[in-house]
């Protein structure tokens, strides 16, 4: 059996698996950013990891989001109730504390983090 026949028997698709297909549901609404620091280490986000950010998703309580807080970017866990807060996820370092979002804050969710790309070596 030659290669062409194999392809024919197993369907037309001869495309290799594509990571984009797995990680990016909405290409026109997806941006990449890079993490700094270790405030989200318990969420599996390490320094220098690439985050896949999907803007087409409406953020829900508990989502990890990239937000625009007082004119700078931050990645944190979003808490909608009982109060709007951004939570760091690092149990080892108690210097990281939640940020309450008040009416005075310039705050906007930039997008929801859907995947983390982490190099292990």
């Amino acid at each position, binding site marked *: 059996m030659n290669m062409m026949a194999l392809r024919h028997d197993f369907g037309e698709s001869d495309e290799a698996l594509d990571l984009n297909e797995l990680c990016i549901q*909405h*290409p*026109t*609404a997806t*941006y*990449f*950013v*890079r*993490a*700094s*620091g270790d*405030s989200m280490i318990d969420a599996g986000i390490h320094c220098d990891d*690439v*985050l896949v950010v999907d*803007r*087409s998703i*409406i953020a829900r309580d508990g989502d990890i989001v*990239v937000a*625009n807080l007082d*004119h*700078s*970017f*931050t*990645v944190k866990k979003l808490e909608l109730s009982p109060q709007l807060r951004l939570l760091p996820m690092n149990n080892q370092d108690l210097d990281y504390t939640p940020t309450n979002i008040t009416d005075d804050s*310039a705050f906007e969710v*930039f997008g929801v983090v859907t995947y983390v790309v982490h190099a292990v070596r």
Partner: protein
Amino acid sequence: MFGVVYCPDFYIQCERLFRPELIERGLLITSSGEIGDDPIIASSKETRDLGLKPGMAGDQLMLRFSQITSDHAVNVCRPNYELYADLSSRLIKSLELLAPKVSAYASNEAVLALEGLNLSKYKLSEHKVSESELVQLNGLEPSSPYHQYAIHLKDTLKQWLGISVFIGIAATKTLAKLACDAAQTHSKHDGVIDLSMASERSLILKRIAVADIAGISKKVANRLSQINIHTALDLSQAPKNQVRRHSSMITERIAIELSGLPCKTPEQSLIEASVFTTGKQIDANSFKQIKRVLGAQVVSAIEQLNSLSNNCKTVTIALTISPLDKRVPAFENSLTSELTKPTDSIAAIRKLAIELLDSVWRDGYQYQSLKLNLTDLSANDGDQIGLFPTITKYAAVASNKETPKSISLETRLSINGANLSRQKRSLLSRSFTTRWGDIARVS
């Protein structure tokens, strides 16, 4: 039904998307990234309010800049076309998911053909508009399903891309463009104006002066005012032959489109060329690209020639250098040449046009526009030597009373003199969406 989607301050919006520190701060984009000899390519609302307008350069700019007190922060950066191009392509791709048919007119402007759009999702709003709200809206009820669709479109683009747009909806492209312009000027419409209903159309058209209509020059507007046509509404209701007598075929076509009747080709392409003046973004330095533009112009001109059953004898090409190209004074380099015999042959006319372009072309300049002129038109009445008699065309000539003296097409080649190839990479904002090393940091 058509929609026009326009991104205001597109370059500024792109820069701010990944640099939140620039939000609500004054921002200028100049080709050197400094205040000086280079003209301002884009200016944010904050800096425009300080009198720093796009196009300003040199002493005028320095003087104005020196008068600004230090409590107004003004950031300056180089244009990052790589970033703008990616967001522009995301904009068009998003629109393609949201509208039946999309044509990009510029990096920040697109026309949607809405035929075949499923409107069942966008039912008339349940909310009954109160009297006081109606007054606020100048009598416009934000209720048609097209209006709901446009609002959905606007919100979706903001959500997906982080880019704000204005949208105009109407029965013709010219009207939709007008609605989109009006949505920008009249902030109370929340960025969307829908003229799909006749009552709303006249309300908006009444508020627009003829001179403010894209595609109508000041000169034409003056002539129209002599016959008591002052507003877009007047123009849409005026007898069309009167409009034509006092201005031009294009103005007449614009008038027809304003009354809600779409014009058919070949004039359509002409109207689009004049109404959507920014044109597609073309690398104005590339000869190959400009040759392609010329090719398109020839096709369009031949269409018109055929519709008039005319031949032409003389071809003129004019290439204008951008006034923003500081190395030379703005000038137009034009060349005229005659065909060996009057013809409507696309091959012959294209060949001559490209020869002319070849001769006027000089490398390294920033070109602003390309003009193609076909003159010495004569009836295509079979005097040419050919194998086949052109009987059908001859019949058409008999019914064609008016023959224009020439056919003229012009295409803008660059926006604000923006030009990709002269960019150095220093002083640029980072290419947040196209280079891994440049993506934004979040902590």
